[in-house]
């Protein structure tokens, strides 16, 4: 990708972040935002910017980056431009893990991602097993069907878990099913960012293997990749990323689908540059979607996952036409 394109991606992220700081139930002028960032001006504006909107934007950037990298890695490894953690049921599995942990009163964002990761890893294993049992792991459609089925199963599992739960737990869990950045705190965002960094670095380190896996298993093996081991590592790291985003912001679908495609269309060639570009673009997309979620029907807030789905579904359909 040319330097100018990278600059464009960064610019999109900055614009989204600035909009996130200025827009909301209370609109702030650019001057007021600028002042509040450095602790000057109206006390209300300072509180809104520093304790509400800034951590929210930071969480959005981190979540979007995790979803973007995870989607880019899964698409290349599964050789499927429609692969992404939400559609593959991986996020659903993570939600089951997270809700289980919450039901057991483990709510710290240090621990929650681990519970979500266990759920996600089980889900990805199940999806691959279903696809293999159908005898067509390479067929994108079978894989997605497996993902949808496992996702539906995960939803059902969450509902069952919730059936005797106190009402505030139910509310919390529903929040998970729909995705939101509204509970963002600096403390939690730091944990989420640390986990996303770990998963992201793992996947970038696997970049050369992922590049070859995108050619197919036999070519990858011919060129020197231990296919089984590399694939397992990619799934684990991508599941970790997806799980962390679920623990931090619930089910935010389609970001991992849309963002790598945009970055590729902008000229990213190597898998590593697609992953890095998807991290930046993913952050921008989630922050922008969150701005929409907060402003379209203000003062009411739309679920973030609903906004990304409204963006992602038409995109998915246009891609589906191309591969079938």
């Amino acid at each position, binding site marked *: 990708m040319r330097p100018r394109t990278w600059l464009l991606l960064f610019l999109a992220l900055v614009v989204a972040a600035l909009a996130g700081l200025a827009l909301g139930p209370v609109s702030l002028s650019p001057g007021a935002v600028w002042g509040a960032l450095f602790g000057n001006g109206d006390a209300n504006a300072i509180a809104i910017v520093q304790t509400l909107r800034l951590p929210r934007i930071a969480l959005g950037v981190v979540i979007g980056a995790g979803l973007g990298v995870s989607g880019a890695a899964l*698409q*290349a490894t599964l*050789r*499927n*431009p429609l692969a992404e953690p939400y559609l593959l049921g991986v996020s659903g599995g993570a939600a089951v893990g997270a809700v289980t942990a919450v039901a057991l009163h483990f709510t710290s964002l240090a621990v929650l991602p681990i519970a979500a990761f266990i759920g996600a890893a089980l889900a990805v294993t199940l999806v691959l097993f279903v696809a293999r049992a159908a005898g067509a792991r390479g067929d994108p459609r079978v894989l997605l069907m497996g993902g949808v089925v496992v996702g539906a199963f995960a939803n059902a599992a969450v509902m069952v878990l919730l059936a005797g739960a106190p009402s505030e737990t139910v509310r919390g869990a529903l929040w998970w099913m729909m995705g939101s950045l509204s509970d963002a705190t600096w403390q939690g965002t730091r944990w989420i960012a640390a986990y996303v960094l770990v998963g992201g670095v793992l996947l970038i*380190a696997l970049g*050369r293997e992922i*590049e*070859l896996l*995108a*050619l*197919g*298993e*036999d*070519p990858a*093996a*011919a*060129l*020197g*990749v*231990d*296919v089984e081991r590399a694939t397992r590592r990619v799934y684990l790291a991508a599941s970790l990323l997806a799980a962390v985003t679920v623990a931090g912001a619930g089910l935010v679908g389609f970001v991992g689908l849309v963002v790598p495609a945009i970055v*590729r269309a902008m000229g990213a*060639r*190597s898998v590593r540059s697609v992953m890095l570009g998807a991290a930046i673009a993913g952050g921008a997309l989630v922050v922008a979607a969150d701005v929409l979620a907060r402003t379209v029907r203000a003062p009411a807030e739309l679920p973030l996952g609903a906004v990304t789905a409204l963006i992602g579904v038409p995109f998915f359909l246009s891609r589906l036409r191309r591969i079938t």
Partner: protein
Amino acid sequence: MIRFDGVVLRYPRAPRPAVDGVTLDAPRGAITAIVGPNGSGKSTLVRALLGRLAPERGSITVDGDNIAALTRLDAARRISLVPQREEPAFPLMVRDFIALGRYAHGGVWSGETAVDRAAIANAAQRAGVGEFLERRTPELSGGEWQRVRIARALAQGGDALVLDEPTAFLDVAHEMAVFELLDALAREGRAVLLVSHQLNLVARFATRIALLHAGALAAFGAPDDVMRGDLLERVYEWPLVVTRDPAVGAPVLVPLRNRASR
């Protein structure tokens, strides 16, 4: 250089082995061809070379080293292999595609070295793809695509070159160009192991031919020893004659019309 010794290969849960006791070798400086009807086990042998299927019995060695004991990286540095089918999930620049052949020579974070660049340029030139390095893989014709894949195998740099039906879907000129290239590469000292359905071309270019039938070796020897009408008729289960090409003097297989329609 590559040697199969009494190799038995069986797919998981298959009642019978796909390859049953095959012994053959592909020395440096020659083209060794593996031919045989569909399902006779040709591609299974290639899968075993890729480490995707472990021999139930027997051994596969590269210069005396058992392939099962080599890491994939080690094996890839010695054997450059062009699989039968390949379709990149996402379009690639031809040059980037050839550069992937250098994977086994780099580390996790290492970029392209001067050695890599030289190997890529040399491979592209040898395979005759230097003019379309900046094109994207989906824009290539069938012949160009096969040559680009051979270029990647050359960039990989192993002394052994294994190709699984490299001329499928190619017209006469492109097919000949590939065989001429393989011939030149063998003369330079590489061991070329070639799986092919083109018996007549194989008979002209290969030093030795291994004829597989239902997973077993029906014959292994010089083209004149293997290109025998009675033998091929039995293996391919089709009436045919083997004659001699008046232009080039090589044995030629001519399949006959079925008895019923004659």
